[in-house]
């Protein structure tokens, strides 16, 4: 199916967010077709999290517009179709794995047992149901956080550094699941500063200092930059001199 004819799942128009003199997001125009995985690639402090928070409606834009599924954000009702995995785990350390998941599913009004079990199976935490989140390893907490973000089967999913601290085997499974979600029509925006994850996305947005530097598939960006390393391509678009010499 071609995304070109469908209205964009995620759209921003001249979106800006300033904190005093700092332009966290400095005029971003994007329109992302549904059913694909987008990688938001940039270093720490480049504005990835702020852009996602604007799209989820947790921050109000200084100017411009953020739209998700055609609805201008912030919009509370739309949030039932949005999944958001924060960079910090955003789970309750004193609650068990099951209780955390049940809590978030309950907020979407979808805390039925079968759904919770399926979400736990996906992140391979079914045998840890009763464990307090406090006692989980960093990677397991990440997995629980992901399960909480996906338990209500959202149409648009924002994942902020989802695979930090997750072992490679499970990471492959995560991406396989992300791919399955797009098969059901979901749109994913995955923020990462790790370039090796970028190749798994359908399309990449290079972001730095609150601006989108370049957009395209990984291959396309490498070709345009005249390099075969994505890292060098990023530096090329960022205008860092002499970086893309290794073509």
């Amino acid at each position, binding site marked *: 199916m071609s995304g070109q004819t469908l209205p964009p799942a995620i759209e921003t128009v001249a979106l800006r967010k300033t*904190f005093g003199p700092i332009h966290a997001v400095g005029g971003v125009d994007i329109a992302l077709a549904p059913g694909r995985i987008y990688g938001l690639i940039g270093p720490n402090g480049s504005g990835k999290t702020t852009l996602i928070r604007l799209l*989820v*409606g*947790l*921050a*109000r834009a200084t100017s411009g517009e953020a739209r998700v599924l055609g609805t201008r954000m*912030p919009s*509370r*009702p739309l*949030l*039932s179709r*949005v999944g*958001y995995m*924060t960079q*910090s*785990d*955003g*789970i*309750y*350390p004193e609650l068990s794995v099951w209780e955390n998941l049940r809590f*978030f599913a309950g*907020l*979407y009004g979808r805390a039925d047992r079968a759904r919770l079990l399926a979400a736990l199976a996906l992140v391979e935490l079914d045998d840890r149901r009763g464990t307090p989140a406090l006692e989980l390893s960093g990677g397991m907490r990440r997995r629980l956080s992901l399960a*909480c973000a996906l338990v209500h089967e959202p149409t648009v999913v924002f994942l902020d550094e989802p695979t930090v601290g997750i072992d490679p085997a499970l990471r492959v499974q995560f991406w396989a699941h992300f791919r399955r979600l797009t098969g059901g029509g979901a749109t994913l925006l995955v923020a990462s500063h790790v370039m090796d994850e970028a190749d798994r996305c359908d399309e990449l947005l290079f972001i730095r200092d609150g601006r989108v530097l370049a957009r395209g598939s990984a291959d396309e960006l490498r070709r345009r930059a005249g390099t075969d390393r994505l890292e060098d391509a990023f530096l090329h678009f960022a205008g860092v001199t002499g970086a893309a010499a290794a073509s």
Partner: protein
Amino acid sequence: MSARRLWSITRRIIDGFRRDHRTLALIFIVPVAVTALLGWVLRDQQIAPTRVAIVDLDVAAGGRLASAISDAAMGAGLTVVDDGIVDQVTARAALADDRIDAALVVPSGFVADLLAGGSPRLRLITQGANAIAEGGHVAGLQRAVSRAILSLAPGGPRGEIGIERETVFGTPDADVLDVMAPVFIGYFAYFFVFVLTGISFLRERVGGTLERLLATPVTKPEIVLGYSLGFGIFATFEVVILIVFSLMRLEVPAIGPLPAFVVGLDVPTAGSPLLAFLIALLLALGAVNLGIFLSTFARTELQILQFIPIVIVPQGLLAGIFWPVETLPDVLQPIARLLPLTYAVDGLRDVMIRGYDLGAGSVQLDIAVLATIAAFFVALAAGTIRREVA
């Protein structure tokens, strides 16, 4: 022991404090402010002169003793009130209405008995709601009585003169705990519930769960009311346990090497424990939402605890726990009348000591004000939960 490492650690602490202005303020400014407030309240107390009514039933003596006591009392700065108080019934009514602080009853035949060398007894009636304030009234009146009797029987009475104590509410032998326990039920509930919610909601803000929460379709009222209900359940337990522990008396017999002991404070209550519970609960619900509100202004658990000398301690000094609000310095009185604890203290005293029920206007006012303050704190708390931050 390396001096350099020692200095490194010391300096780390100094640098940390220098950056944390709020903790610096807590160390240097807040203790001075709290001590100053205590000094202000104690030194500038407006202790109104004791208002006393003398009920003279000794018709045979022709009012001799009554006028002698009256003179002595006025000489000592007490106010003698007439106000149509002619017998013990009108005296009790005046005490209940807080028109007088004490009534002294001279029984019939007192003076004749005194002069004949007998040991007659006077009767002193007080309200019985605030043992600490009443102690002062009683002492002043006793001095006036001794002086009056000395003037009637120069050289001192041959017999011993007793003063029978009586109270309108409670019993004259009620100890300090009996009158203070109702008030501390409210104070402790307020204190613990505030700290509990403040820290808990702070963790919600700092730990990223509030952000996650706000990314769901949940509404602000749902969060605030959900918190109020959740913590309200624990506040309910807290208040129930405090009230039950205060009222009960469970004698545990000696078991083996353990001596017998008593569980509970055995404090009497004149009114309905349920009504006392309702008042304390309303106060605690306000504390839940005050905790949510103030957690906005804290970044660490330590900073929540720093609110204690600002929020909890002044209320303890101003809310009428130790000194009646009317005796506070003029400037502090309007402040005291804004504090929820003032109304809870008054309401709990009304119910547990005076035995008032829901029909009493004073109890209705306390409950209405507490409910209003709780609703106000709910609105404040809701205002601090923002979906769009900044």
